[in-house]
């Protein structure tokens, strides 16, 4: 519970709440002799009560004007879902179609297809937290893991704009893994890597990645957007001399991912329909129960404060309306 004010400067006006302590705005009766009106406890009590009410009415109106709110709170919720970091390839080739051409007319580029399907995916998964990382030569952390779906969708939409340079998968995965550093282990954690190419991962990065995946217990889904005619994940080389990471980076990256101790699944999507199928598979897989923290937006309290002011004012009006002229 942290109550704060939008316009705290206005609280200076709280001194006005002292006004009723001068005297209540009730009629003054003149009496010849004080002894006729001995002080009694009940009257004093009512007097003090009315002053307090008047004071509080003024204070509440001022507090309401200063707009009090409860700052963002987090509540724990239990749901079925996952912490998913979408790791998007921003290399230039993503702007081409699945046929490896620049899109013409009504054709969709790979990044456009990915954007459309991922936007739906994010929209459907109510209880998942999504984070977005994009990478080309260097990784970019775009949106942290959060329940803000619109932000994740905006980041995915941005990834459909014209791309950058090359594909550095290891760097992208490192920053995606770093998203899980602070989150609680109860959730199912997944990285969804969406790329249309692969790159060799050097030995040192490979060892680091292996250790991180195990440490954070993250499962990996690789959606490989295969361009027609290019080598696939599952292709075996025709000749043994081509069987190396330089010639077939996809195959070797796949083999490296298979060697991780955490669950891994690869999808080779050669057209938009295959990509949609891969995404719906992932949707089914990560359905373990999880405890997650949902951040509540800040809550405006001025309504309550005004209601309180109204009640206090009712007391004031009632006391004023009840006064009668003393006919002596």
């Amino acid at each position, binding site marked *: 519970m942290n109550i704060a004010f939008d316009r705290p400067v206005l609280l200076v006006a709280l001194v006005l709440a002292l006004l009723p302590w001068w005297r209540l705005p009730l009629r003054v009766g003149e009496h010849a002799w004080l002894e006729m009106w001995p002080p009694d406890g009940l009257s004093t009590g009512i007097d003090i009560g009315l002053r307090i009410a008047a004071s509080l009415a003024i204070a509440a109106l001022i507090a309401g004007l200063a707009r009090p709110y409860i700052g963002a709170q987090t509540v724990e919720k239990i749901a079925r879902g996952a912490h998913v970091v979408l790791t998007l390839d921003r290399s230039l080739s993503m702007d081409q179609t699945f046929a490896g051409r620049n899109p013409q007319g009504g054709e969709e580029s790979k990044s456009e297809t990915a954007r459309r399907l991922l936007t739906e995916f994010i929209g459907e998964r109510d209880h998942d937290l999504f984070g977005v990382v994009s990478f080309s030569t260097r990784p970019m952390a*775009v949106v942290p893991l959060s329940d*803000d779906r619109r932000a994740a969708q*905006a980041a995915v939409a*941005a990834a*459909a704009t014209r791309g950058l340079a090359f594909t550095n998968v290891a760097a992208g995965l490192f920053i995606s893994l770093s998203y899980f550093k602070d989150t609680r282990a109860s959730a199912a954690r997944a990285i969804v890597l969406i790329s249309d190419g692969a790159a060799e991962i050097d030995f040192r990065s490979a060892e680091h990645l292996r250790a991180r995946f195990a440490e954070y217990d993250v499962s990996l889904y690789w959606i490989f957007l295969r361009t027609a005619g290019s080598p696939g994940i599952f292709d075996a080389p025709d000749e043994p001399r081509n069987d190396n990471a330089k010639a077939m980076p996809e195959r070797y990256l796949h083999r490296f991912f298979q060697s991780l101790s955490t669950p891994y699944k690869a999808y080779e999507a050669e057209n938009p329909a295959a990509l949609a199928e891969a995404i719906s598979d992932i949707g089914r897989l990560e359905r373990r129960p999880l405890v997650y923290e949902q951040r509540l937006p800040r809550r405006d309290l001025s*309504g309550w404060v005004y209601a309180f002011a*109204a009640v206090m004012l009712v007391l004031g009006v009632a006391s004023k309306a009840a006064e009668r002229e003393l006919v002596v």
Partner: protein
Amino acid sequence: MTAGYARLWRRVKRSDPKLWGLVLALILTLATFVVPRWPLARPVYATLFVVDITRSMNVADYRAGGEPVTRVARAKQAVASAIARLPCGSRVGLALFSERTVNITLMPIEVCASFNALQASVDMIDWRAAWAADSNVNRGLVDAMEKIELARAGGALDEHTSLVFLTDGHEAPPVNPRYEPDPAILVPGKKPGAPGAAAADAPPLHGLLVGVGGYTPVEIPKYNAEGERIGVYEADDVPQAANFGQPANPEEIDGYVPRNAPWGRSEKLGNEHLSAVREAHLQSMADAADFDYLHLDDDAAFYRAVTPRAWAEIRERPTDIRWLFAALALVFVVLVHAGTVISDLRRRARFVFPDHPSRRSVS
């Protein structure tokens, strides 16, 4: 019936204005629940903030609380504070500049609903995300303008989107102005007939170039692949002058040989390894693109510069007007109570000083 009304009217006439003050205050307070919101025309903004993340932005020539702050950190802070102040309904997108390209990382989203995500996204902007180490600001600007135009045409951005580019204007390596694209070509109607010119009837793009950095040239820190600082860029580490293509005016170049040394034979000395905000360069780019220019000093001035009236889209939004009722109610309650205090003070004055002028004025 009429007798009843007459009695009521007599009672009202006899009654105390203080009672009516309190009743009005009560009615006004209750009104905050009856009409909490009212549709009012409010300005909203759609802004794409582009932050330069090239190496020269690592120069720590800003200060906050006595501590040196890098240019990129200062730029991030300015963007974050502007996002916090923008009226609800405004949308903000983020983009990074490095090399010759502006990379949109986040399409504009609503600032109030996605407040946390936006602040976190700004916070995660990191110079290490730079995909290449060059810094060609002019091309970056042109690229940003092109991308926005394309996105507007495709419906991904709406046409009120304005561009705010925060950079120190440091071109590295130095550019040959002869081969630089002209941002003016992309301004509708500014250069009609030029190849690639924007359609004259295209909606204009509002924009602001923000000069980030101090005016004194300082050394640029150098980092290794692990992100550890390993000193600063020396004069020999960077090209000191443009040497690409043919120079625009060869007669000015000492030792010009058309084929073998188009940029002269003498050693180039210069201060390209030092960085200060290049205001003249930024100013001229801003003029070409019909943008405004601002040097980044304080957040309030930055906010004013990114929210000019001309950029706003006026939208009718249900706006919280409870404060209006509450303020009036407060005025009435305070008047009622202040009234007792004032009349008592007068009475007392009359009692203590029988000749006090108030005595005459009262009775």
